[in-house]
Structure formats: C-alpha cells, structure tokens
C-alpha cells in the first residue's frame, strides 16, 4: 500500500474541538456518539464554545457533560427544558440547549417540553429517539413501536393495553411558540449530513431569538435491539421511518430565510 503523506493533504474530516477526546461509555455503534459529534461540530463552526451552556438529562446520555468541552448542568429526569428555561431567562445572551432521550423528554418530561414549546422558549432541544429506555436496560418507551418487543413488553407492544407511540415532533409542531421542529435520522451518511444541517439551523434559530427549536433524531440502540450496529441502522430505516416520517414539521418563515 502506498503510504500517502498526510502533511500535504487537506483534512476532510476530523475530531471536533469541543468534543472531548476520550472514549465514551456509549455502546459500539450507538448513534448517541454521532449526535454528540454533530452538536460539537456545530458549536465549533459557529464559534459558540465559550457562550454555550448545555443541559444534560437522565438516560444513557446522563454523562454527556463529560464529552463536551463547555459548561453543562445536569437536570432531573424530564426537567431539562424547565432547567434550560431557568438558565436562558437569567442569561439570555448564552446559547442554551438540552440533550434528551425519548423516556426523558416525552414520558416523564411531557409537561416540561410541551410548556417550553408553548412558551416559545428560546432554547434548542436535541431529541434522541431510539424507541426504548436504553440506560435502564431496554424497557418500553413512549416511542416504542406497536408490536416491538422490549423488556417490559416482552410479547410486543400491545396497543390495546399499552397504547400508541407518541410522535413528539408532530405534537410540538402544533404549538405557535415552536419555530423549528424537524425530524431527521442518523442511520446513514446521507441522513447524518441532513441532520447536521438541521442542528445548525436550530442553533441559528436560537441565536436570532426566533423561538423554540427542536431536532428529533431517529437513533439506533444496537444493544437493546439485540442487533449489530449495521443491522440496527437498517432496522431503523425499515421500521422507524415509516412510523416517524422524516421531515420539517414546523418552520417559521423567518427560520426558512436563515442562510449559512
């Protein structure tokens, strides 16, 4: 193999500056890592390293503050949007975002997220939807698909007893205070690129004071889905996207004019 001299080559992709260079506790192939990387890239590109305060939530990402090189606070389960509100209201010149999973945001946290969206709180929410409660071992989440087996729905989610999954983007997009609510996916390179653009748009929305922004990221959970990372990516494409269609659910006219 020819050894290429990297000194004379351009760097096409590298580890983002505001992502701490340590090995994370996330499982191999878990797209939490991908989401973290995209947020870190965005913060770097926008030069927000010293003006951002992140709000961590409870789930696999409870230690997310170890992986970002900027200020963070830790919220109780589900309360991150309220905590972010507290920070943003007293420090409106800072960029404040929450990073939440599906159990955190749309189960125990339903009250807080709906209220924040309703108020048009000028924060950004990164919502990781992997259809189960990962940290506690794979129980049913509000986003678990009908028929999907989890440790607390061992025979598959039975909609008669356990009801239907909650579609967070659709729900929050109906609020007038929500300015940018979109759903993207992290299952392949093309969609990851689109997700990155959406995350950038969300942070730009906040910077311009245009209201509440949320990017829902369909994500894999190889361990609790009992699949390899590649199979999990395929499963997501075949099963989750039909139920949770990708797209822009709310884009305020002023947000659609944002160019970067």
């Amino acid at each position, binding site marked *: 193999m020819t050894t290429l001299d990297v000194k004379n080559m351009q760097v096409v992709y590298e580890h983002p500056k505001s992502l701490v260079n340590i090995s994370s506790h996330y499982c191999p192939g878990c797209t939490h890592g991908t989401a973290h990387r995209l947020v870190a890239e965005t913060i770097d590109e926008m030069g927000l390293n*010293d003006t951002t305060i992140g709000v961590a939530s409870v789930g696999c990402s*409870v230690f997310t503050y170890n992986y970002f090189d900027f200020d963070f606070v830790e919220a109780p389960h589900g309360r991150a949007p309220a*905590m972010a*509100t507290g*920070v943003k209201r007293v*420090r409106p010149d800072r960029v404040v975002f929450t990073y939440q999973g599906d159990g955190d945001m749309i189960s125990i946290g339903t009250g*807080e997220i709906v209220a924040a969206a309703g108020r048009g709180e000028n924060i950004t929410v990164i919502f990781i939807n992997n259809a189960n409660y990962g940290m506690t071992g794979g129980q049913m989440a509000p986003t678990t698909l009908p028929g999907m087996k989890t440790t607390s729905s061992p025979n598959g989610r039975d909609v008669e007893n356990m009801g239907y999954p909650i579609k967070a983007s659709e729900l929050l997009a109906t609020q007038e205070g929500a300015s940018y609510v979109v759903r993207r996916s992290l299952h392949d390179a093309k969609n990851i690129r689109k997700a990155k653009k959406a995350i950038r748009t969300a942070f730009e929305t906040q910077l311009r004071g245009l209201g509440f922004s949320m990017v829902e990221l369909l994500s894999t959970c190889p361990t609790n889905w009992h699949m390899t990372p590649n199979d999990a990516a395929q499963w997501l494409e075949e099963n989750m996207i039909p139920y949770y269609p990708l797209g822009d659910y709310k884009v305020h006219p002023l947000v659609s004019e944002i160019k970067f």
Partner: protein
Amino acid sequence: MTRELWKGNDAFAESAIRAGLQAYFGYPITPQTEALEYMSARMPELGRPFLQAESELGAINMVYGAACAGVRVMTSTSSPGTSLMMEGLSYIAGTEVPMVLVDVVRGGPGLGNIAPSQCDYNQMAHGGGHGDYRPIVFAPASVQETVDIVYEMFDIAEKYRTIGVVMIDGSIGQMMEPAEMPPMKELRKEIPDWAVRGGSGNNKRTLTSIYLDPADMEKTNLRIMRRRQQIEKNEVRYKEYFMDDAKIAIIGCGSAGRVSLSAVRNARAKGLPVGLIRPISVSPFPTKLVSEIADSVDNILVVEMNSGMMLDDVIMAVQGKTQVEFYGRMGGLIPFPEEIMAEIERISKGSEPLCDHPRNVWLDRMDSIMAR
C-alpha cells in the same frame, strides 16, 4: 422608611426584591398566590426575569437552572406544591447551589384545604427531599418578621451554598400587618466562581448532583454535612418571653407561638409562672436551649398546628429531664389563646407523669377538646 400595611404574601415578595432577587419562577397555589401575582407585576417593572411555570415541577427546575447560573433566585409555594418541589430541592442540595423557598403551609395531607397549618414541619425541617441533607428552615411569626427573615435568607443560603426555607402558615401569608420594608439592594453583577456562565477548556464548569462512585458521593455528603455543622453552630435563632422564673415552658413557633404568647401574658397576669420559647430556626433546632430549659422547668407544653412534629425535636432535646406535653390543632385550625390557657391552668394544677407518648395523651383528649 415608613411602616405601611402589608399583606404577608406581598410583603415577602417585596422584601425578596429588595434583597436583590434576580429571578422568580413560581406557580399559583392558595394561600400564597398573591406572591406570584405581586412578582408578575413588580419583577418586569424592574426588568428582572419572572415566569409562571407550567407546574411546581417546572418552577423548581427553573430555579435550579438559574441557581446554577449564579443568580439570586427564589420560588414560593404551599404544601402540595412543596411536595412536588421535593425532587428539585434534593437535586439543588446535591448540586450545592443556593436558593430561597417560601413555603406557605396549608392543611393536609393530600389536597387538604387552604386554611393555615404547620403540617409541613416534618417535610421541611426533618426532610426536604431524598438524600443526606437538611435545608435551613426559619419560621417567622409576623409579617415584619417574615420580611426581615426573607431579606436575610439569600445571604445565608449563599454563605452555606444551601437551600434557605422560610416557612410560614397560611394566616401569615394572608394577614395584613404594619411592616417596614428594608432598603433596596443593588443587583449583584458578579457571579460566584462555581456558577456556569459559558466557558471551555480550563474554564469549563459542570454542575451536577450525580456521583456514581460511592467514594466521590461520600466526599460530597461530607462536604454538605460539614457545612451543616457550621449552620448548627451559627444559625440557631429563637425568642424567649417571661422565661427567667418560669416553671412551665410553652414551646411554639410561628402562629402557634404567637397565640401561645397571648395565653402566656394572660397566665402571667393571673400569677402563673409560665414562659414561652418561640424557635425561629426550626432547622437547626435550638436543641441546646431547650435542653437547658428542661433543667429548670417542671413542665414543657409544645403547641403546634399539626399532629406533633416539632414535638419530636423537643422530646429529643429534653432527654427525659422533665415532663413534655403536647397541644395541637390540625386540618387548618388555629388554636385560640383560651385553649392554651386551659392547658396552662390544667398543668399548673399539677399533672400526673405521662404514661404514654405525649402525642397519644393529647389524641386521647382530642374528643373533649373538639367538643369545646
């Protein structure tokens, strides 16, 4: 400053503002809603953040966020709301950031009623949320005292990086009394070093209450407990009335103490050697004082508007050195001075040693008490 007629809830709101309150997040709940409404007008007037949250859960977490950002922040609520806030309070304590809470207590448990009570005593003075910590809890007995204590509480909470609770019963929140407001403090511009403000690298700060390694958790617990020791040494407060030659000591805080004072004055007028200790700090409790009093009095009567919660602190402090009895009204009822007077007269005539816990002795008498 002139004395003006102030409603308790409005008064503590104004006092907090003068103490340099930088943000208020709250939720309506009787009997403290006037404080929220007062803040909703006054805070925006002064250009300071105010928000009515979606619930007490939302409110306490907004307070948590603002506290992490290093600003003077408070909320106020009443008993059912306090229960909702317990989770947030525990997190705030575990993160070691300061805040002030005013708890305007009403009848309970459950939805209870909107009448005044002291039945949050256990929840606040003996608890405050899960985990190894106790908040500082002061119990004023008048509108002026509430104003003074709220004004000071921000400094105290910040000094110890802890939660400062001002616990009043619903009647103090609702009553109107003359009060003098303290001077308006300038808003602080600097934030404490531990506060998050946006920083990276060596300037990155993380505020969390999770310590997965038990050894790290214990270090945090120890840090919190050592500050608690300082609090117990420095922040005990109480008032004594007619105690110099007292043979019977009434112990009551807040409105229960105030009503008892009327009874004590009546009793003294009749020549009965009775005095009153009115704890202002119930956490830390004036244990040393009560223990010393136990050496010189023959009887202690604890008076509360609950089922006997401060009673347990008194029993512990007295260590069996003298007889402790209890008188309480529950469910939102306030005892009248005549009721306390009847107890004083009963005890003065000579009381048998109790053969059961003072609470049970009182409960056995409750039927006849309620029939009065």
